[in-house]
């Protein structure tokens, strides 16, 4: 690998890392700052998952370029995360509805929810 392409790769990995870190952080800021549970649910499940996905891409790039490993591992993690994130969110939302967690309007969810 030439010095040029190595340089390019480093830039690419760095960019991916920074972007992913931004998304990850954004997800957590959303978790901390948004007004009610149902809105908070969006941050981690979307932004953070994306962020970690980006991290993994960076990792794939980094290690694959070094020729050490055909990074199936990261792929597996990404798959796991992308399959599980929506289900976690779904179940958490169900739980919140069951516990009648209040939404931002202040009124608890009065409608019949699936738990009833």
């Amino acid at each position, binding site marked *: 690998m030439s010095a040029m392409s190595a340089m390019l790769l480093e830039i690419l990995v760095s960019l991916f890392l920074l972007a992913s870190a931004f998304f990850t952080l954004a997800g957590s800021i959303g978790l901390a700052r948004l007004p009610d549970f149902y809105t908070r649910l969006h941050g981690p499940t979307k932004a953070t998952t994306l962020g970690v996905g980006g991290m993994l891409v960076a990792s794939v790039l980094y290690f694959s370029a070094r020729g*050490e490993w055909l990074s199936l591992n990261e792929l597996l993690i990404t798959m796991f995360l992308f399959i599980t994130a929506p289900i976690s969110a779904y179940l958490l939302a169900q739980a919140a509805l069951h516990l009648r967690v209040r939404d931002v309007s202040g009124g608890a969810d009065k409608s019949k929810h699936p738990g009833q």
Partner: protein
Amino acid sequence: MLAAAITIALAAISLAMLLNLWRLLCGPDLPDRILALDTLYINTIALLVLLGIHFDSLVYFEVSLLIAMMGFIGTVVFSKYVLRGDVIE
């Protein structure tokens, strides 16, 4: 450059984890806390990937993989407990 990027990313993720802690402490409801725990798990994966690149080592991947699996199962169990009480029925 990579080193700088890793440092910044590390700082960002550390900050993210602190924010998760904040949500864990404040709640106010149980689902908030479970969600914070779930997010913490995912952030930990990010942290481990970063560490892997930083130490130039592959041994952290299995840990990340299992944290991904276990984080999911943890969230599922807690939610199921809230919903149904009996986790295995």
